[in-house]
């Protein structure tokens, strides 16, 4: 019943935390709310030597209202608090929606925004108990050399199943990554890679400390479809943003998640509705155009044909939601 052996360390200052991460190299793992770290330790998918808790770092739990109308959110802020934060609901309703879409109330009472953004990829084959996995050869995630999803793949095809990054991408959020050596700012749109084993540009010695969202007056929407509405990872989720009013738009962005290793920014449907507006016909044409950009649907917690159809449905709904907002 006990977790695998490891050392647990609470850090009391950011500096101490960064020093510890620098010293322990790849052997340490940051614990925000721990809801995913402990889950993966139970499955023996994560076996860190050191678990570094950031829960006592008050500076990572604040939500700061910027003078330009934006917000700067500490990576250690709890999802439950963000879901009810007045400024977040007021300024970024689609982001607030994406926060409420994560897991259950119980989990949001523990989980952090940083943990959701840095959530590891998930796989229908590998995210099972060790006993279950014994029926298969090892894959990239379990020290093997293959991916069960597509055996000929040279990389792990596990999917990014997190909800909040989609809303943060369309809002143009920027992540602050700090290490003992310094700090860098990375737009969240450039944070994810297409390698299921190492799906972000975060280095092992770095900590995500803040998420800055610029002021946004455009219309936005977030929608998620999951097997169970109350608590489940997404089958498909989508976030979208546009300017203008009614059917009139000139700039549209759409991001689809839970389909592949990184969130997919859709270009063709955005181009179509940017040119033709948000009328029914243009929306249908936009939906028809997403197939190529989604690419092959690989890592399936549900049937590929269903998932593809639901991606179409959600893209249509999200564009209608923009039109009506």
């Amino acid at each position, binding site marked *: *019943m*006990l*977790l*695998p*052996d*490891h*050392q*647990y360390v*609470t850090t009391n200052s950011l500096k101490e935390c960064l020093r510890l991460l620098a010293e322990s190299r790849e052997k340490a793992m940051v*614990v925000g*709310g*721990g*809801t995913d770290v*402990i*889950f993966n330790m*139970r*499955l023996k998918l994560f076996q860190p030597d050191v*678990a570094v*808790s950031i*829960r006592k770092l008050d500076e990572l739990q604040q939500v700061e209202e910027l003078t330009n109308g934006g917000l700067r959110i500490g990576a250690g802020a709890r999802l*439950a608090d963000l879901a009810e934060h007045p400024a977040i609901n007021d300024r970024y309703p689609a982001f607030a929606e994406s926060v409420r879409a994560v*897991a*259950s*109330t*119980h*989990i949001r*009472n*523990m989980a952090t925004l940083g943990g959701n953004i840095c959530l590891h990829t998930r796989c229908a084959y590998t995210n099972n108990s060790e006993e279950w996995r014994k029926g298969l050869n090892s894959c990239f995630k379990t020290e093997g050399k293959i991916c069960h999803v597509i055996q000929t793949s040279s990389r792990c095809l596990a999917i990014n199943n997190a909800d909040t990054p989609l809303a943060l991408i369309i809002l143009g959020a920027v992540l602050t990554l700090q290490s003992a050596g310094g700090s860098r700012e990375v737009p969240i749109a450039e944070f994810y890679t297409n390698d299921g084993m190492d799906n972000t540009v975060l280095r092992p010695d770095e900590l995500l400390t803040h998420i800055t969202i610029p002021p946004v007056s455009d219309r936005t929407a977030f929608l998620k479809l999951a097997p*169970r*509405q*109350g*608590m489940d990872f997404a089958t498909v989720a989508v976030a979208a943003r546009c300017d203008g009013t009614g059917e009139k738009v000139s700039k549209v962005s759409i991001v689809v998640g839970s389909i592949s290793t990184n969130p997919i920014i859709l270009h063709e449907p955005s181009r179509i509705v940017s040119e033709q507006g948000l009328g029914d016909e243009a929306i249908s044409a936009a939906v028809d155009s997403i197939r190529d950009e989604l690419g092959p649907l690989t890592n399936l917690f549900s049937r590929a044909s269903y998932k593809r159809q639901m991606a179409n449905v959600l893209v249509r709904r999200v564009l209608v939601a923009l039109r009506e907002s």
Partner: protein
Amino acid sequence: MAKHMMTLTVNGDVYELMVSDNQTLLDVIRDTIRLKGTKRGCTTGACGVCCVNNAKGEAVLSCITHALEWDGESITTIEGLEANGELDAIQKAFIEFGAVQCGFCTPGVIMSAKAIVNKYPEPTEEQMNAGLAGVLCRCTGHVKVKEAVRQDHELREAARHAAAK
């Protein structure tokens, strides 16, 4: 495994405990303090039967959090609801409405229900659904549970009036 000293307040009682790095809060509640009301189900955050309330009266899952994370904190488990030999209103409501069958999920469901009424004394349908979504009952379902949660407020009011008289 190295052990560390920690302080945890459970149901108002302060415990000084030796806890190892790889114990979860659930392990400490059940195996160290030996309060067996809180149940061990999936141990991966999916079923909710290990639910306890934190110091703010919110529902949290004790199976997916390091015990040492809770050093200096205060929690309430199912054993902490009764006071002076009398059950809490929410517990009475569960009995009255038959919101219990095999009982395995009951501590987790009651602590989730308690968290709902702590925050919303007269919860809406949506607030109840959101508060109960993370805890599963394979016998009773959530219908009778919600009847009990709705009743909690009335029982509490009745008790308040009785005390005022």
